[in-house]
């Protein structure tokens, strides 16, 4: 015969199962703790109406602001003339951090044991947020596109710290030092909007932290598509202008 304790445990198990089987995510359930960690697993798209865009004029120190504004202006003028400047997208390079969180294409978030993984469909960009681990010193991280991210849950908010983003991986043409630190607070609102409050700290280039917010909405029943930058016919010429490779009619494309 079933003891009262076993019966109670079974009932609790059924309740927990019932609660999880009604979440909107179509994914296998990620481990959920009782600490109020929200289920953010699934596909999301940028909700521009729920975002606080980065100012076109970041709080850079004057000499860096001058450089950023000149680059932005030159790119704008070249585009207006129909002769766009080549940029890293021309080379088929991924955006890296924090630009990938701008989610030009949908993103997918996966919650697994000890890790939250974020995939951006464009260029199949992947960042791994290692949970409950100490952050490394900047010198101990090899510089990369996404940096080294650690995070922990503070109630329902995922607090993330990222270092080690390469100096030539820039957001909105703003230069940064190797010591740049990206702090994020990722939380799910009652309205279903997921927000990523970003704070960029880089005392070498910034007068004060640079803050902005990316908002996202769930895309029900959407699985990210593959993205391989396979035949990029755009290239940078010797003047740094974006040009287009025209294939011969006899052998068009690949």
């Amino acid at each position, binding site marked *: 015969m079933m003891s009262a304790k076993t019966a109670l445990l079974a009932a609790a198990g059924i309740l927990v199962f019932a609660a999880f089987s009604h979440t909107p995510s179509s994914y296998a359930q990620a481990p959920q703790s009782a600490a109020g960690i929200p289920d953010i697993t699934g596909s999301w798209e940028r909700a521009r109406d729920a975002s606080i865009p980065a100012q076109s004029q970041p709080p850079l120190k004057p000499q860096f602001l001058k450089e950023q504004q000149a680059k932005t202006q030159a790119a704008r003028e070249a585009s207006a003339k129909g*002769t766009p400047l080549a*940029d890293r997208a021309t080379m088929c390079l991924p955006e890296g951090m924090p630009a990938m969180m701008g989610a030009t294409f949908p993103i997918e978030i996966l919650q697994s044991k000890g890790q939250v993984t974020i995939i951006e469909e*464009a260029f199949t960009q992947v960042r791994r947020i290692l949970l409950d681990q100490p952050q490394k010193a900047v010198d101990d991280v090899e510089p990369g596109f996404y940096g080294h991210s650690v995070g922990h849950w503070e109630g329902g908010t995922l607090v993330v710290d990222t270092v080690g983003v390469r100096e030539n991986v820039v957001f909105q043409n703003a230069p940064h030092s190797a010591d740049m630190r990206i702090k994020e607070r990722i939380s799910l609102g009652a309205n279903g909007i997921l927000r990523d409050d970003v704070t960029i700290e880089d005392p070498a280039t910034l007068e004060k932290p640079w803050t902005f917010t990316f908002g996202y909405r769930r895309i029900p029943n959407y699985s990210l*598509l593959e*993205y391989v*930058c396979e*035949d990029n016919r755009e290239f940078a010429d010797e003047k740094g202008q974006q040009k287009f490779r025209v294939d011969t*009619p006899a052998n*068009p494309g*690949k």
Partner: protein
Amino acid sequence: MIFEKLTMRGSLCLAVVLLMAATAAEAHHSFAMYDHTRTLTLKGTVTKFQWTNPHAYLEIDVRDTKGAVKHYTLEGTSINMMQRIGWRSNMIRFGDSIKVVMAPVTSGEAVGLLLEVTLANGETKALGVPAENTFKRTPEQEQRP
């Protein structure tokens, strides 16, 4: 007065939309090398429909009234974006007779940005070019090649 206010609000909205479109476009490949002031409508035969990223490409042969054939290379958008608005790789096949609306490249080459395609079955589909409304359409009868 109200009208003036509305117009001002309208232009502000347009400016915001353009700015957003520009920001979105900056993250990817620029379409600024295409003429935003006119379009060409071409009827031709497909020699290749290339389903690739960063962009799809459509290669067509266009025969003029004297029978001479000119080859055009047409750049589409990302196949991911195309799939999200209903495109499939098998919608255009080698040898299909199709009609396209494209923005010609400013360099004068036989290259264009594909804005819309009328498929062999008569269905017209847009490519989902970002800030598509910034490409001014030229009525077919007013076009110069």
